[in-house]
Every structure is written in C-alpha cells, then in structure tokens.
C-alpha cells in the first residue's frame, strides 16, 4: 500500500513539474465550456424555458461541465499505448506492482488535482459571469450525483483503457481515441442535455455507456428524475462497468501473449 501512496505523491509532484502543460489543458477546458455557456445564454436570450429546461438549469448544466471534465473526462491511462509500443511495459511487468493499480493510483492523483482546479475555475467563472444558477440543496440528489460521477469516472477510465489495450494488435490507437473523444463529446451530453433530443433517439441513447459519463450525473444534480429512471440508470452503468472490466481483463491476458516488447 505504501508504494502506491508514493506513486500518488509523485504524480502530484509531476503536476508541479509540468504545471504549464496542465495549465494549458485547463484553459482549453474552460474555453470549450465558455463556448457552450454563451451559446445557451444566447439561445435563452428571449425565453426563460426551452426544451423543458428553465434557463437556470441549462446554464448550471453548462457550467458544471468544467467539473465533469476535471473529474470524469480526465485520464492519462492512454499512456498504456505508448508503453506497449515502446516496449517500456516490460519494466512494469517485472516490478512488484500491479500495472493497473499503478495507473489507477496515478489517475486518482490527477483527478484530485483536476477536481481542485475545476472548483477554483468554477468559482472564478461564477464570480465573473454572475449567471443565474440552480443550486441543488437536496441531500439525496447530491449524494446520488457524487455516486454517479464516481461510476462515470471509472467508466471513462475503462473505455480509454480498452482502446489503449488494442495497441497490442493495432500499433496506432490514437485515431481510435480521437473518434471515441468525438463520440463522447456529443453522445455523452458535453454540449447539451441528451433529453432535449427527439424522444426516440433519447430512448436509444439511454442504453449507450456514454450517456452515463456526463448527462446522467448532471441530470441527477438538477433533480426531478423519477426513481425508476435513477434505478435504471445506475443499473445500466454498473452493468457496463462490469462488462468493460471483464473485457479489459480478457484483452490484457490475450495481449500479453502477443506482446513482443518491440522497441525496447
């Protein structure tokens, strides 16, 4: 356990060493969020309610995207593909650590930093923009929101891990990751709440894993979700979580068999 704590500490220190990279990444997240926020402000210029959403809820949704990006949609687990391609995976395999626990620990440290920064950014944006916001006060909704973002963070980690593990067979998985990020941006609800889409389309998206990365947690924060939908959502996301976990273990076992440590 102590070694993982050290990895956690070192990862936090990495942010100190590469603070410019981190800062630029956060600026990019804020720019994307600002575009979405101002777009919705403009759409609601003459209305207080559209698409079944009051203005304060849609603006809260767009501002909370900073938080979701900082905690859920941030991972460096894709570095696995570089480690497989360069052969540096070998050095982890002979060390007395669990390879996935190593990366998950690093990710946890990243998420702590991302969470801290997103809260600061959110506070600054609220002070500067002074938007009308919906503040959730219900303990139930806040609790279930936190549970759902933890599930979302694990799901995202699993999706990126699966793509990265394909490097065992496809040496360049960067295009696949690019495609996944684009699909996630739209199908997860990074620009708009998915339930503003036509009903039939939304009913299909409910069964997509992407829905549980952004839309579902934010919808829970905004409240007014029927109990049956909450149970269905949590169940579907946990089923995906377990399926992806099984798939990762399968890919890992098969991948190691074909791993040739090329490039080492």
């Amino acid at each position: 356990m102590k070694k993982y704590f050290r990895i956690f500490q070192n990862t936090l220190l990495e942010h100190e060493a590469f603070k410019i990279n981190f800062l630029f990444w956060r600026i990019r997240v804020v720019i994307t969020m600002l575009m979405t926020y101002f777009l919705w402000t403009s759409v609601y210029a003459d209305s207080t309610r559209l698409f079944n959403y009051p203005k304060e809820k849609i603006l809260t949704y767009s501002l909370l995207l900073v938080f979701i990006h900082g905690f859920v949609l941030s991972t460096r687990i894709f570095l696995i593909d570089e480690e497989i391609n360069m052969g540096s995976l070998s050095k982890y395999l002979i060390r007395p650590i669990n390879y996935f626990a190593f990366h998950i620990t690093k990710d946890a440290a990243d998420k702590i930093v991302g969470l801290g920064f997103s809260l600061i950014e959110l506070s600054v944006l609220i002070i500067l923009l002074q938007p009308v916001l919906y503040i959730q006060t219900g303990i139930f909704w806040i609790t279930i929101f936190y549970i759902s973002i933890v599930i979302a963070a694990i799901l995202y980690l699993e999706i990126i891990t699966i793509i990265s593990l394909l490097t065992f067979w496809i040496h360049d998985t960067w295009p696949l990751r690019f495609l996944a990020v684009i699909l996630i941006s739209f199908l997860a609800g990074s620009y708009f709440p998915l339930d503003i889409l036509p009903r039939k389309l939304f009913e299909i998206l409910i069964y997509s894993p992407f829905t549980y990365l952004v839309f579902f947690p934010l919808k829970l924060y905004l409240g007014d979700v029927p109990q049956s939908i909450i149970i269905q959502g949590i169940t579907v996301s946990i089923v995906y979580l377990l399926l992806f976990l099984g798939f990762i273990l399968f890919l890992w076992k098969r991948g190691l068999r074909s791993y040739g440590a090329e490039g080492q």
Partner: protein
Amino acid sequence: MNKYLKIWLLISRNSFETFAHYRFGALVFFIGKIARFLFFLLFIIFLTAKVKFLSGYNIWQVLLIYMTFNFIDASTQMLFREVYRFKQHIITGNFDLLLVKPVNVLFRLLLGGTDLLDFITLLPFIIILVFIISKLQYFSLLGILTYIILIINSLVIAASFHIFVMALAVITTDVDNAIMIYREVTGMGKFPIEIYKEPIRSFITFIIPVGVMMTIPVKAISGLVSPPLISGCIFVGGLLLFISIKVWKEALKRYTSASS
C-alpha cells in the same frame, strides 16, 4: 515562385503517399472528423430551428458562419499540418538540416506536410457553402467577392498564428499547447461572436481576431460591412503577418541548436 510551387507539389505528393501506409488510422481519423462536423451541424440546425434567431442571425446565416469556420479550419489544417510536427524537428535536431537547405525554412515548415484528409473535405465544404449562400435572403456578387477576399485574409491570419507558435517553439520547444489553445479559441468562431459577452468578445476580436476571421466575412456577403471595416480587416491580417515574421526571425536568432 515556380520553384516553390514545384517543391510544394512534391512534398504534398510525398505527404499524401504516407497516408497509404496508415490506411486504417487515416480512415478512422476521417470518420472522426466527419462525425464531429455532422454532429455540430445537426446541433446548430436543431437549436436555431427552435429559436429562429441566434443573436440576430437566422438559421442560414448561422450555418454560413459554421461552414466558414469549417472551411477555414480545414484549409488551415490542410496547409499547415507540418507545424504540428515542428516540436519533433526541434528536439531531434532535424531543424538544423532544414535550415541549411536551399529552401526558405519558414515555407518548408509551414507548408511541408499537406494533409490529405482535410484536402478531401474541402470540396464538399465548398458545395455546402454555395448551397447555404444560395439560401440567403440577400447576397450580391460584390458581397461574394468581398467574402472570398476576407477568407483569404483569414488564412493569412491563421498562417501568422502558426508562425507565432513556431517562433515560440524555437524558444520553448513546445508547440502542442500553444496550437491547441489557438484551435480552441478559433473554435469559438463556430458561432456568431455576438453570442459572447465582454471581456471574451474583446479577446476574440482584438487578441485572436476570430470575428475578423469568421463572422465579418459572412456579414460582408450580405453587404453589411463597410469598406473601411474591410480595409481594417485586411490591415489586421497584413500587420499580424508582418509581426509574426519579425518574431520568427527574432526567435531564429535565439536558436541554439542544443538538440543537434
């Protein structure tokens, strides 16, 4: 000039041939780019169909701004893709080899890696642009001519920012962050700049002139831009290009060739 055209055609052909080696990756990338374009297009249609006007622009004008953004973005990516690889030239010392070649190094670095995927998207974008322009309530031949001139001006501005980024890379060896910030900021031009409030609007008007690049050309097509404003836009483009070349030359003086 003829020599540079020949060189550009040669390096573009070489660049296109590399895509044949990465067919799977190129195909997935292409699908990703098209998916992103279509998703946004549908989202804009969906939104503006509901509210009728977005900051005073009707659906066709909003779509024209979006398509103008896409055309400029794709052209920029197609022409200046090599800039994304500049970091590698610096940290491997390969930049020294480019400096001693009898070709202008800025030309080689800016235009040395034409992107086939973006090239393929240009023709469909032009067709969609023509279709959208035909749907506008008012446009004139002069307006279209001004639009084309201002689009060329936008490409000059884009080139200037790519030169700034490379100048920065000579000093700091970092390209990725600066270029991505530039892309995110210009991405704000997918929508009319009137949707943004101060101080964001001033930033994307005066610091990175997204409005000059994307929104003003669209206004020009309907004759909503005065000649002094058009001259001002062209002046901004020329000034940025002039300053960027000065900064680039200054950066070259500080290049220490440490990686070679």
